[in-house]
């Protein structure tokens, strides 16, 4: 994955977040405070600005800018968590100009570890971890099986979507939704849903690049 593809991913992620702004906010209305879509959309709008202002020269540089901007502009729970995920991934990539599949897999592992370290959520707690962790595992498994970027990204995106859908019956144990206790059951976690969207964006641009 080179810098252009990384930028394309972030732009596509910004697009799907904007398109799903109300959807994500509605998910958050059910078990949170009705701002997740608004938060992420604000964050990614600033991300695009920041990338335009000082275009980074490496995939890692792009991800560091994304992470730093999300931390500085989103707030809420998702700002530091997503920000840390992107920053850890960016740091993991270092200054490589074109990340290979193993480097990408390591970066994703670093991302989910950063999220878990900061937020202390376990799988099944009904958070973004429930989408991110299976996605990272699916990516690693695909790499293990010598899959190409498109296949690995698609596997990750599908795993994230399944993981997000699987949060519906869960009772939230972390974040704002946990205050609802059993009343949090029956609703999809907004952060898991946005994780699936962002990884879906990665699969989309990988496929487009492949066909171009």
């Amino acid at each position, binding site marked *: 994955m080179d810098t252009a593809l990384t930028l394309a991913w972030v732009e596509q992620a910004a697009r799907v977040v904007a398109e799903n702004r109300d959807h994500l906010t509605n998910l958050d209305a059910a078990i*949170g*405070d*009705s*701002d997740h879509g608004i938060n992420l959309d604000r964050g990614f709008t600033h991300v695009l600005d920041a990338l335009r202002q000082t275009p980074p020269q490496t995939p890692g540089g792009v991800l560091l800018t994304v992470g730093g901007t999300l931390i500085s502009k989103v707030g809420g729970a998702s700002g*530091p968590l997503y920000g840390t995920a992107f920053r850890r991934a960016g740091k993991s990539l270092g200054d490589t100009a074109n990340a290979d599949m193993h480097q990408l897999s390591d970066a994703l592992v670093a991302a989910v570890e950063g999220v878990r370290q900061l937020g202390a959520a376990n799988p099944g707690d009904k958070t973004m971890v429930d989408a991110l962790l299976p996605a990272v595992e699916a990516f690693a498994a695909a790499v293990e099986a010598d899959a190409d970027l498109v296949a690995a990204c698609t596997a990750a995106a599908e795993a994230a979507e399944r993981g997000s859908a699987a949060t519906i019956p869960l009772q939230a*144990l972390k974040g704002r939704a946990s205050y609802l206790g059993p009343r949090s059951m029956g609703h999809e976690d907004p952060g898991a849903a946005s994780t699936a969207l962002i990884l879906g964006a990665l699969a989309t641009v990988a496929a487009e690049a492949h066909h171009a």
Partner: protein
Amino acid sequence: MKKLINAPQDAVTDTLRGVAAAHPELTVDVENKVITRSGGATAGKVGLVSGGGSGHEPLHGGFVGFGMLDAACPGEVFTSPVPDQMVQASRAVNGGAGVLHIVKNYTGDVLNFQMAAELVGDDGIEVASVVVNDDVAVQDSLYTAGRRGTGATVFVEKIAGARAEQGGTLAEVASIAREVNERSRSFGVALTPCTTPAAGRPGFELGEDEIELGIGIHGEPGRERVPMRSAREIAEACVLAIHQDMPLDGDLLVMVNGMGGTPQHELYIVFDAVRQTVARTGATIARTLVGNYITSLEMAGCMLTVCRLTPELTALWDAPVQTPALRWGR
């Protein structure tokens, strides 16, 4: 949703421009969203920084001033502020004795303040953090993110502020802040939901004859939905929820707080009922606050916050304070 705003995305900056113009005693960095005392850092005094989502006014900006906070960081409406704000605030109010972060226990607030504390610490500024978690409506257990920080925040900011003003060290100020938190509990009730400017729709729905017990301050649904009842019964429910968690005795500091959309006279009615219920526990109401101090936009309802005072806490509560929203003795 009808709101006195211009555009939802400008709500916080427009507010801050208004705050800046209305309060010459405050310095407001509108762009970076940091409110500090106009005098700058007080040399040798511990600096107190708090912050959280907007929409809870007067919290926190209304409590910046002598005897209380040195700086407030308002986030977007109901959204925790970002670390940049707390870093800027901490640098601005550090008078050499370190900075105390007063953090309401919400994942977002905790994480953002945590990141900020790291960055501030890297600057060589001593930082301590106190997490306020007084809301008995939430079980503090493995099954939650822990109790929410609500009404006790006002008590913590006032009392820790007084201790800092007296020259307490960072450890002392942090310790009294934790003591206030440990001795304080809250329980809130909503009669109506509220709507953030950005969302444009209420956070939950409530029937014409329903109320929500155990609400938070972010327009989120509460612990239980029950039929509407009298002020007396509501006050009783609040007192008992607290008393069951922290048996009331001795001298109490009691706040009957309006959530933003409840007339002041109703808060007095609730306070009168609280008084009657508390009397049955044998405890004494020694200090009182009735009004809008930590709100949820235009939500109708109230929150009861109780602190079991010690002579030291009473003296610190009584110490002079001079902020837009709380002022006495000076």
